[in-house]
């Protein structure tokens, strides 16, 4: 199976402060992977580099078979990266419908593309909120909206930074259910979250970052079994 995302020796930072020191990461088509680590270990910085929102200082990123190079975030978005960023970043003064339809596109002429109706089937609470402003949604609904917005771009890779952070348990459960459903469609997914027990049930491969370096990579069974790993790198 070909890789959707290939990251080799990625370095990045903010100003003089280097955050990433030679990260390697692969995600194959249809694969679900996670990026784990304590706060400040470089997970969001990695996501920002993947999405083209932060220029790496070294290494290479290939997305959908093409080198990203100096291309901007808009190119990566068009190439098929569906970003659900930390903090959701929905558009607060656009209605839910506007948040969704503004970015609906099927640039790769995918068969059976995501439509507004499919998104509302996946997230029924949004159906009652279509006329509400983004700012009037609860945190969980905003996360559903952010995921729906990314899906309507018909991505080849969905990236969720802090997928369930700050959500009430029931809402968190709804997001996990949606991610299981998305996984079943064959969509490649990269998830960042702190609920390792749930992540091992969804993802095939896990990468742990520690102080900007890859500290461990392995499968769900290995991660679930190694509690020492959790304590050492994840603070669990």
């Amino acid at each position, binding site marked *: 199976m070909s890789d959707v995302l290939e990251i080799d020796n990625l370095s990045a930072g903010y100003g003089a402060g280097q955050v990433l020191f030679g990260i390697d990461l692969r995600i194959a088509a249809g694969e679900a992977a996670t990026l784990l680590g304590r706060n400040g270990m470089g997970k969001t910085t990695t996501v920002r580099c993947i999405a083209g*929102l932060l220029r790496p200082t070294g290494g290479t990123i290939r997305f959908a078979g093409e080198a990203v190079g100096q291309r901007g975030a*808009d190119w990566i978005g068009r190439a098929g990266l569906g970003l659900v960023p930390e903090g959701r970043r929905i558009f607060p003064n656009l209605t839910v419908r506007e948040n969704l339809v*503004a970015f609906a596109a099927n*640039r790769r002429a995918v068969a059976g593309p995501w439509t507004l109706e499919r998104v509302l*089937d996946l997230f029924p*609470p949004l159906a009652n909120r279509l006329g509400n402003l983004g700012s009037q949604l609860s945190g969980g*609904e905003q996360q*559903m909206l952010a995921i729906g917005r990314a899906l309507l771009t018909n991505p080849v890779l969905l990236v969720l930074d802090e997928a369930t952070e700050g959500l009430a348990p029931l809402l968190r459960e709804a997001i996990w259910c949606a991610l299981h459903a998305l996984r079943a469609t064959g969509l490649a997914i990269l998830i960042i979250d702190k609920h390792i027990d749930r992540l091992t049930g969804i993802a095939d491969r896990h990468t742990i970052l520690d102080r900007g370096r890859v500290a461990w990579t392995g499968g769900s069974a290995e991660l679930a079994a190694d509690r020492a790993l959790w304590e050492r790198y994840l603070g669990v």
Partner: protein
Amino acid sequence: MTDASITDNPPPVQARRDIAPLLLVPALVIVSLPLVGSPASWLTLTVAGLAMGLMIFVMASGLTLTFGLMDVLNFGHGAFIAVGAFVAASVMLAMGPWMASDSLWLNLAAVAPAVLAAMALSGALGWGFERVIVKPVYGQHLKQILVTMGGLIVAEQLLKVVWGPDQITLTRPPALRGAFIIGDVAIEKYRVLAVAVGLVVFVAMQLVLSRTRIGLLVRAGVENSEMVEALGYRIRRVFVGVFVVGSALAGLGGALWALYQETVTAAIGAQVMVLIFIVIIIGGLGSVGGCFVGALLVGLVANYVGFLAPKVALGSNILLMALILLWRPQGLYPVAKR
């Protein structure tokens, strides 16, 4: 999949719109009636205020969007207003016989191409201005102020080179002169036209911004341009388009303003820029709806205060801005930024 009843903090399903700022306009109009005293004078002042406000809105709407989209402080916006005024004046003067005719249609046949030419040239100048002057200073506010202010000064001098240093006197065509007399109330025809044009521009902008994809992208970009980029759209291309349209609207406003004042000078744009900045700050930087309400308030306050207390008229809009910012420090309709 998920249950509709699942929610962590259920807000009302019915969308709530913030109408408090909008109510300021009718409140101001009603409060001013007993202060002015005479209903006839009050109605005349109100129409004059609305006309002035809507002309300022036409000129200011593009500037607020360009600031919202790319954080660009364009002090050179006045140049597009001035170019619009000069081009419209030149076209109208060249069509002298039609402008002087008693036929409404010939008058319109002279004014319409003048306005279109003003918009086209101001839009084209806007495109060049963005490429040459604004583009190199994205994200650098101090340089933006310096270089766009410099652009305005250079543009004013170039206008003097092309059109000469003297002011141009325009006479409105007969169809736009005089007033509608309703009882003992006189309402200038030109002010009614200015209100109509301003409302058409506002409604058209609202339709584009809410019913078209490009409009939604502009609104989304004003709130969070980085996220729009991440979702696959190049915000700078959107920005250039908005800049050109905003410049063309400034040209339209300049043409309207020139006919309103019946004189055109190279400083016509710079003179009105103070009011434009007050309007976009009152409205909330980046908000077209806020710009609309702010422009109406500025126009009405200028006319009411000019009538009631001419000595304080000059500072009345500064006072209005201070009061509104005390109430809402981010303006009437704050635009969320990342």
